[in-house]
């Protein structure tokens, strides 16, 4: 158990820090807006490409596919150092965290050759097409139909809650190929071209005003059998590979944390004096700190296990259950401190640029996207 860098780690960290100082761009635009501005997206791609060229993208992946050929600890250290900079948003996370690893695990050689390198370099973006309107959190209830048409497949149906579909080049699709077997047995996975005819993407207008998610409609979309990922009927099993990667990929929630609350409190009055001296607030801050730190170190435990070649346990699933509610509670408490003034959402007028008002409106989505709290508790309990 050691938090200090070994000499080797320290050297890697120093090199990463120097490279970041020389190369990190100013942050361009917020991810929250769905990357609607092309300039924002270009900044994201440019940063990913620069990292890939320096071996800092997909650090643990083989060099032959554009990765860094490095170890898990290098990935952790680079992540820690990158977090100190205000780098662009990361629309590649779903592709590199879930879809492409699935292709790498169960896809054929041609697909790996074709897709891995451009994804690493930020040239192609992926989305994940599992959720459906009638299925919700129950992936096995997928109804989107893939029917044989000679050697090819024809796809009809609808997906929903597809993050980033509006800017994605490819999608990993779960479809029903056999309606006559028990529901989790008749599924098959495909990759699809999101720009192909027969694919229609409709952004979902969220309560926060942004549109990060989409509905995606398929009308007689033609797909070659070569686009199949894994065997026919193995879609459910394959989706578990993807979702396991997802749970590992979802990191902290970002946003305003306990430090920000302390900052807010320093300027605010309560009935009994300054909020920063208010024991009720201080105890809450301690509780939040312990949760946030607990999550951080739980993540380190997961990474330690991975770096030793072990499979992480259920502790790797607790991140989102804890962090989303934490964000909501913290935002609510911060607004309570602002008292009547807290209703103001204008970033120019609200304390700290309206950080907590924004967090309050984003928290519900975070508690739901990627599996509700309830579904994750089931996963943890099993």
């Amino acid at each position, binding site marked *: 158990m050691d938090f200090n860098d070994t000499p080797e780690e320290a050297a890697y960290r120093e090199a990463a820090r120097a490279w970041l100082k020389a190369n990190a761009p100013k942050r361009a635009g917020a991810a929250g807006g769905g990357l609607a501005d092309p300039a924002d997206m270009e900044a994201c791609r440019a940063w990913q490409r620069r990292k890939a060229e320096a071996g800092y993208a997909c650090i643990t992946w083989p060099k032959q596919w554009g990765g860094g050929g490095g170890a898990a600890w290098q990935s952790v250290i680079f992540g820690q150092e990158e977090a100190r900079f205000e780098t662009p948003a990361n629309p590649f996370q779903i592709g590199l965290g879930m879809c492409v690893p699935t292709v790498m695990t169960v896809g054929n050689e041609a697909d790996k050759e074709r897709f891995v390198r451009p994804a690493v370099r930020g040239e192609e973006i992926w989305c994940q097409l599992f959720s459906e309107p009638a299925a919700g959190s129950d992936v096995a209830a997928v109804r989107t139909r893939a029917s044989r048409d000679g050697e090819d497949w024809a796809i009809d149906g609808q997906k929903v809650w597809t993050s980033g579909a509006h800017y994605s080049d490819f999608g990993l699709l779960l479809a029903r190929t056999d309606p006559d077997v028990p529901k989790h047995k008749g599924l098959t996975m495909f990759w699809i071209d999101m720009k192909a005819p027969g694919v229609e993407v409709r952004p979902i207008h969220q309560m926060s005003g942004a549109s990060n*998610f989409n509905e995606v409609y398929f009308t007689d979309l033609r797909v070659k059998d070569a686009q199949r990922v894994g065997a026919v009927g193995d879609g459910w099993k394959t989706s578990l590979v993807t979702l396991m990667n997802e749970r590992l990929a979802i990191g902290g929630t970002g946003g305003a944390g306990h430090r920000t609350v302390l900052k807010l409190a320093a300027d605010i009055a*309560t009935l009994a004096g300054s909020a920063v001296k208010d024991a009720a607030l201080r105890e809450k801050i301690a509780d939040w700190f312990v949760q946030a730190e607990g999550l951080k170190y739980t993540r380190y435990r997961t990474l330690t296990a991975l770096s030793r070649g072990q499979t992480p346990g259920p502790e790797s699933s607790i991140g989102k259950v804890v962090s989303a509610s934490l964000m909501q509670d913290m935002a609510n408490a911060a607004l309570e401190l602002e008292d009547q003034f807290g209703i103001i959402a204008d970033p120019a007028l609200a304390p700290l640029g309206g950080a907590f008002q924004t967090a309050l409106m984003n928290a*519900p989505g975070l508690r739901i996207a990627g599996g509700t709290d309830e579904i994750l508790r089931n996963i943890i309990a099993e």
Partner: protein
Amino acid sequence: MNFDFSDDQKFLKSEARKFLAARCPPAAVRAVLDDPDRPYDRELWKAVAAQGWMGAAIPEEFGGLGLGGIELCVIAEELGRALAPIPFASTVYFVAEALMLAGSPAQKAKWLPRIAAGETIGCFATVERPGVLTDGQVQAKVEGGKLTGVKIPVTDGEAADLAVVLARQGGRIGLFLVELAGAGVTREALEILDPSRGAARLAFAGAPAEPLGEAGEGMALTEAVLNRAAVLLAFEQLGGADRALEMARDYALGRYAFGRPIGGYQAIKHKLADIYIKNELARSNAYYGAWALGDGAAELPVAAAAARVAACEAFWFAAKESLQTHGGMGFTWDTDCHLYYRRAQQLGLVAGAAKAWKERLVAGLERRNAA
């Protein structure tokens, strides 16, 4: 002892619900939400005025219906349930109550009939900066009958004709009446968490202001008004919380996952039960507050604080967990969950947050125990 509404009050409640179901469907709330240039629903305001609701608790001699505080609570619950996008609370719970508490005969005679008729919209302008409202926060000043200073945020400040303003005069803090159509008033609409309601920044530069109540009584009067408003707002919150629970239950019974309605799963059932429990506790506290309000009981400060604390907790919990129960639908713009989520925050902050009311409650208990 009798701890329920009377038959007349129940009749009023069911009539109010029918009326609002027809006149204030979710589409009416969204029309205000989606249009930044619409601070409130004028048609609904007129229709509500025609029902006489603004004057429900205003004496008949001032053009009201002369009913009691409890009848106003009944109406508040239905307005809260419907998320009515009108300046009712500011006008009735705050300004009319302030006038009835502290107004001179002339002030009452001038303003109460107009409020009862729906001709005057009021707003209560006390806050100037983040944090709990304390003496130190009040910088607005009246000199020679002219008001100078800034109040932000002022709920319904954009729509209002008449403001009750907290300000200093000769070192003492008092309440003042200011007509907003007059000279020296600048208003700026604010972007707020719940755009189905309106709020503004009011800047005063020598606006004519007349005292409401005794000089030096400003903080005490504000507290008295807040106590009354807290009970009435608690009923609005209760109405919203009950509706949020209904929405969650209806969704849960109609939604299937893993082959059965999600409402059949204990995780969802127990969530609904938890919402129900908080709502019922809030309802019971609100009823006690209503009695204290209607009866003019000495218990009002503690009863109002308890009603507010319970109602803030219940509506916030119901709104956020109802949204959560809706899953992915819950956080879309087109599902109504976020309207309740926003309104829960709006009502939870507008008369001061629960945190401050908890402190008031315990201070009240200490006074009671010492007595």
